[in-house]
């Protein structure tokens, strides 16, 4: 498939328009004359058009049965295949100009790599929608039981996975009131940060003018300036938020979530629910007072800092708190959390910390006063000490964690309170860290690390400052529940109980005993690993071919990653296409037909017939042999061979 032809001029202009304008003015102002300037600009544009035409001709994407193939590149060429199962989210965006000329950008994210893995720029909007739906349909086709992915399988699945509008249920649509609230509660602090950064260098210069002016006028000007700055920041933030979240809509279609939003630049996309890593519910004091909260849905798709400006693509910007929790439960049913707070003594730690901060602040104020010889109240910041106990208490109140049925929930922060929902199944590793100060108070921090992008930006699920023994319990509980979740998934995935019992069962069962008798479990694990290493050593001691065979066997245990479930025969190296060899079991011969390859196709009658036939044939041969041997015993000298063979047969039979 090709890109939209309109993308050639758009891409060309997008790339070089800035350069062209600059080059035009530079050349024009250097007395070389207008014709040359026009010529240079034209040449650049022409080169860009040429390149983009080549890019267009080279770019080719194709939706195959189980991968999305993209071949691209003019100078260095690249062919990329992305398995549908590995696609995390599909995002479509359109700016105003792109909408005007009818093109859209499609971005496909996988968990690997540092940038967007599949970037198709640009196709027509209908094609973008088609790609999104096809990817979704083929993914569910590849993952589910209908591996063929045929179009008209049966009406139910076709309706659900075909992604028709009818199957889509709306979860959330932003109302004008909520949109206004989003704007009102958005505050873009970057401008202030920038100005503070710029002015920090010029402070000594400014201070030269300070003593001349009237103190009151100075403070008034400062206040007005700061107020104006806040106002501008606020308006900017409101505008950005308004245009970002205008017309926000989140809906669910089958097993994927769809969103769309944006005033000038339209964003839309889909997230498979099975790819959701964590949910983050945030609020701040203002939102809490009004009863609102925000929700972000995280996948492993986005690389760090990739879309920091736009925020999480699929965040519900604001909604009534109970609705946000309802939405979150729709995605991950985590029940009703009741958070476990850190020990009360930890409030002293926070109080101490804040008091220290106030002290440092006072010291700075003192230093400024001394340096400027100004007559400002030196110990003014000490008033803040009054705020320390409530601040410490609030910090403590808003901390906590909760172990649910299938999820870990953590809560942190007062000004920006974040509740993170982590399904146990998504936990990648568990980190228990204790700083020097935490050890003094006998507390620890447990972080449940996931592959979600939120943990890269500091929004990780952390149970902060919980008592040490509790931390150890939590750590072990997380590990254990992860294993339960993994084996539950495996059971669900395989559907064969006997496969499960055969190999998956042993590890979690052994794990169950660990918290109860740690020493015992350790001893046991020591024993098993010792046994394992011994086995390895013995394997290593053997010849190369044996070692290879062992490796092959070990590799064969890993199920092929195509979604097809095969029974596990890796335990033996028997060739199942051949009948099993007969083993002499004495009288205890149970299975007369050990070749289980044709058991399924044989019925009772056949069995009996075959057995009877075999027996009667044998018997007949034996009888005839014996008979002939017996009757011809007199002239046995004539035909030595036949008599000998017959006699043997008779003996054997008897």
């Amino acid at each position, binding site marked *: 498939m090709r890109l939209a032809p309109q993308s050639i001029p758009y891409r060309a202009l997008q790339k070089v328009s800035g350069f062209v304008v600059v080059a035009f003015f530079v050349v024009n102002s250097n007395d070389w004359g207008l014709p040359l300037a026009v010529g240079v600009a034209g040449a650049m544009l022409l080169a860009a058009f040429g390149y983009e035409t080549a890019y267009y001709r080279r770019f080719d994407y194709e939706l195959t049965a189980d991968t999305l193939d993209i071949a691209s590149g003019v100078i260095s060429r690249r062919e990329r295949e992305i398995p549908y199962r590995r696609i995390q989210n599909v995002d479509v965006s359109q700016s105003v100009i792109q909408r005007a000329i009818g093109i859209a950008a499609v971005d496909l994210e996988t968990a690997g790599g540092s940038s967007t893995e599949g970037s198709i720029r640009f196709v027509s909007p209908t094609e973008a929608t088609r790609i999104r739906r096809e990817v979704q349909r083929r993914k569910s086709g590849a993952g589910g039981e209908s591996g063929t992915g045929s179009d008209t399988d049966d009406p139910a699945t076709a309706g659900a996975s075909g992604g028709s509008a009818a199957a889509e249920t709306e979860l959330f649509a932003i109302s004008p009131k909520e949109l206004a609230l989003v704007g009102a509660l958005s505050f873009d602090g970057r401008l202030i940060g920038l100005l503070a950064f710029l002015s920090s260098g010029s402070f000594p210069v400014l201070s030269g003018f300070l003593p001349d002016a009237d103190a009151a006028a100075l403070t008034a000007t400062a206040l007005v300036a700061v107020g104006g700055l806040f106002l501008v920041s606020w308006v900017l933030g409101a505008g950005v938020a308004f245009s970002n979240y205008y017309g926000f809509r989140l809906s669910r279609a089958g097993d994927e979530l769809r969103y769309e939003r944006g005033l000038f630049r339209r964003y839309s996309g889909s997230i498979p629910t099975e790819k959701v890593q964590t949910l983050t519910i945030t609020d701040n004091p203002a939102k809490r007072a009004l009863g609102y909260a925000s929700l972000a849905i995280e996948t492993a798709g986005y690389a760090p800092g990739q879309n920091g400006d736009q925020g999480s693509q699929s965040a519900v910007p604001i909604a009534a708190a109970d609705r946000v929790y309802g939405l979150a439960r729709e995605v991950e049913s985590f029940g009703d959390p009741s958070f476990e707070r850190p020990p009360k003594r930890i409030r002293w730690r926070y109080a101490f910390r804040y008091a220290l901060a106030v002290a440092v602040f006072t010291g700075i104020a003192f230093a400024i006063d001394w340096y400027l010889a100004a007559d400002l109240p030196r110990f003014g910041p000490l008033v803040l000490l009054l705020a320390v106990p409530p601040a410490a208490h609030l910090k403590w109140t808003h901390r906590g964690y909760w172990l649910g049925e299938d999820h870990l929930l953590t809560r942190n922060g007062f000004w920006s309170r974040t509740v993170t929902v982590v399904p146990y199944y998504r936990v990648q590793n568990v980190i228990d860290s204790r700083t020097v100060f935490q050890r003094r108070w006998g507390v620890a921090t447990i972080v449940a690390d996931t592959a979600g992008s939120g943990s890269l930006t500091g929004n990780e699920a952390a149970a902060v400052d919980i008592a040490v023994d509790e931390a150890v319990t939590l750590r072990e509980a997380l590990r254990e529940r992860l294993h339960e979740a993994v084996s539950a*998934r*495996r059971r669900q995935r395989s559907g064969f109980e006997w496969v499960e019992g055969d190999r998956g069962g042993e590890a979690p069962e*052994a794990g169950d005993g660990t918290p109860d008798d740690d020493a015992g479990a350790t001893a046991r694990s020591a024993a098993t690993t010792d046994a394992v290493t011994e086995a390895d050593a013995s394997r290593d001691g053997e010849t190369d071919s044996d070692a290879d065979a062992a490796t092959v066997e070990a590799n064969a245990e890993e199920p092929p990653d195509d979604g097809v479930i095969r029974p596990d025969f890796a335990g033996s190296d028997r060739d199942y296409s051949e009948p099993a060899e007969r083993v002499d079991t004495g009288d205890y011969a149970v299975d007369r037909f050990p070749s289980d390859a044709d058991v399924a196709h044989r019925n009772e009658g056949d069995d009996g017939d075959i057995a009877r036939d075999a027996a009667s044939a044998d018997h007949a041969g034996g009888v005839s042999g014996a008979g002939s041997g017996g009757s011809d015993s007199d002239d046995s000298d004539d035909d030595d061979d036949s008599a000998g063979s017959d006699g043997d047969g008779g003996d054997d039979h008897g």
Partner: protein
Amino acid sequence: MTAQSLHPRVRVVWILRAALVAALVSLPFAAAAYLGYAPRWSAVAAGGVALVVGVAHAVLKYRRWSYEIREDALYLDRGVITQVRTTVPLVRIQHVDSRRGPVERAVGLASCVVYTAGSRGADVQIPGLTPSGASDLREELKRLAIRADGEDAV
């Protein structure tokens, strides 16, 4: 397997690193002394203090470091100022590296890095192994990860 400690020679690696840091710390002091802004002994003192702290840290770090492979997870316990205990479930292991940096090669050591899909994935590094120990550990972890038969959950 009981908790394993690192090879004692890893302290050499860490002490060398501490010496490098100490040299870097003393550099501005030396420059200041050269330009006449600071007495000469300040560079020596700064370097000495940094070296003593670094060596003490290296020794304590070695004492603290331990790792253990249990039946379903890899446990690491480390850190002097901030003690960190990491649990890496074997089902979550993506791939395992054994690596040898120039300093490690010089003292005949190697390290083993375990990757998960977690955002802190590459953090799990076990230093101070013998070269054969590192590749054995790599193979062992690979085998256990295959046996654990997990999905990456991404």
